[in-house]
């Protein structure tokens, strides 16, 4: 019957749209590495640099295994937001304890005193996010991979 053709066309369109990720991945299949490996490489790079303190908020087990900091991977965005509120709204600039030296101030790393800040703290050691470079850097690796586009840089200058 005539209607059955219409029904099949509709059904096939639905199936193709719903299962499109499968077709897309088959069509574009490329060899690729997960950015998690970039994070692991970054950890290895930082550990190999004698000038840097291994002073992350990291479990002893993870540190012993040379594994990335799980809690930081899961919750860094919440921490940055918390810091923003503390610094901008309450004027609380006390650096987190895992960055403190004996006097309770931020440690000096690569000639800079660590601040409670993304660009003045985290990015002192971690490779900066620089547009124009050919490889994705530390932050952008995972962000690009899962399509996260933090709106911080809509206003702030990209470090």
């Amino acid at each position, binding site marked *: 019957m005539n209607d059955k053709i219409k029904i099949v066309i509709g059904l096939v369109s639905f199936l193709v749209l719903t299962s499109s990720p499968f077709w897309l*991945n088959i069509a574009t299949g490329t060899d690729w590495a997960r950015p998690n490996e970039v994070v692991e490489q970054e950890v290895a790079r930082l550990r190999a640099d004698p000038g840097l303190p291994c002073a992350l908020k990291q479990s002893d087990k993870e540190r012993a295994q040379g594994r990335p900091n799980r809690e930081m991977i899961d919750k860094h965005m919440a921490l940055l937001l918390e810091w923003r509120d503390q610094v901008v709204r309450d004027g609380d600039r006390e650096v987190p304890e895992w960055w403190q030296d004996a006097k309770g101030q931020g440690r000096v790393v690569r000639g800079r005193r660590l601040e409670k800040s993304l660009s003045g703290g985290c990015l002192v050691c971690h490779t900066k996010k620089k547009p124009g470079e050919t490889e994705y850097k530390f932050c952008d690796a995972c962000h690009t991979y899962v399509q996260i586009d933090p709106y911080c840089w809509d206003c702030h200058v990209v470090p």
Partner: protein
Amino acid sequence: MNAFVSLAAVLALLLLAWLGVAGLQLHILFGIVIPYFAVVVFLGGIVYRVMTWANVPVPFRIPTTCGQQKSLPWIGHSKLENPSSSWQVAGRMALEVLFFRSLFRNTKTEVHPDGPKVVYHPAYWLWIGALAFHYGFLTVFVRHFRFFVPPACGYQQAASWCTDSSVVDGLWWALGTLESVDAFLQVGAPPVFVSGIILLAAATYLLLRRFVIPQVRYISLASDYFPLFLIIGIAATGILMRHFVRTDIEAIKALGYGLASFAPLTGGEAWSQFVHHRPGGAFVPGLPDIHWLFFAHLLLVCTLFVYFPFSKLMHLGGVFLSPTRNMANSNRAVRYDVGWSARHPVPAHTYEEYEDEFRDKMKMVDIPVDKE
């Protein structure tokens, strides 16, 4: 009772995910085996149901209409309420599918308190709730494509973990635009998606409606409550994971992308990588790093997928196949034939034959005849 059974079923699923993943470490079962099974049942079940319907003959034109049929030229024709052509049917269907027109017509019947008079009010809340629910869910569904499609390179040059293709770039542009509109409130990091809130609020409203309105409550079955509790559970676990519990989204993308590339254990890498233990790494990279709440979310979604084709949720396909909606009211203008008359010819007795048989008797009692 129906509601309690449904709620208990959803809670049991959550408990199952917690026991299975946090307790028994069955990451592969809950992360790989069950999702593949669910997708196969979902797509296969929809094909089965739709093709079953497609094979049922529709012996008569039975559109339900609520407007003036096409008639004499000086009588106004209500084209959308009483379509007479395929294009008018398409217009009517579009209003139904995109804007839920029949829900818009929902009315509330009351006996007027001042006297024994029945009064009808328009009742728009069901229509508003249904619109919010369906469009919220659609947005959430489309947004989740980012977990299954290849990462795009965007404005930067190709790296080893992105796909340099204009199709992928276009897809990411579309998904990114949808997300930035959805996150326009810019509250929190990651930002709150309006669609998630709307989905949760609308599903909760549709559930409360079944509790509060006595007539609706009376006719509500477990199969009405279960999908609502399930979808509320899905939205709640999703929001909880994004804004409160938080887990490794990179590992989740690797799982989703791996599933959609038919290489789930390695997150899209060549299958042979699986046999190599990476130094200091887990045997199955990523999976054990994901919070159990993600697997609970996934199990609820898989349950929805498996449940979908065999439940009232199949109105997704059914709305297009309703003969009362998708047929033109042209019974008097066009002869409707299912195809049966060719296969099973019915002996016809036409008027001409009738008159031939009874002409003399008709003439005898002065009944006018066509042929003398």
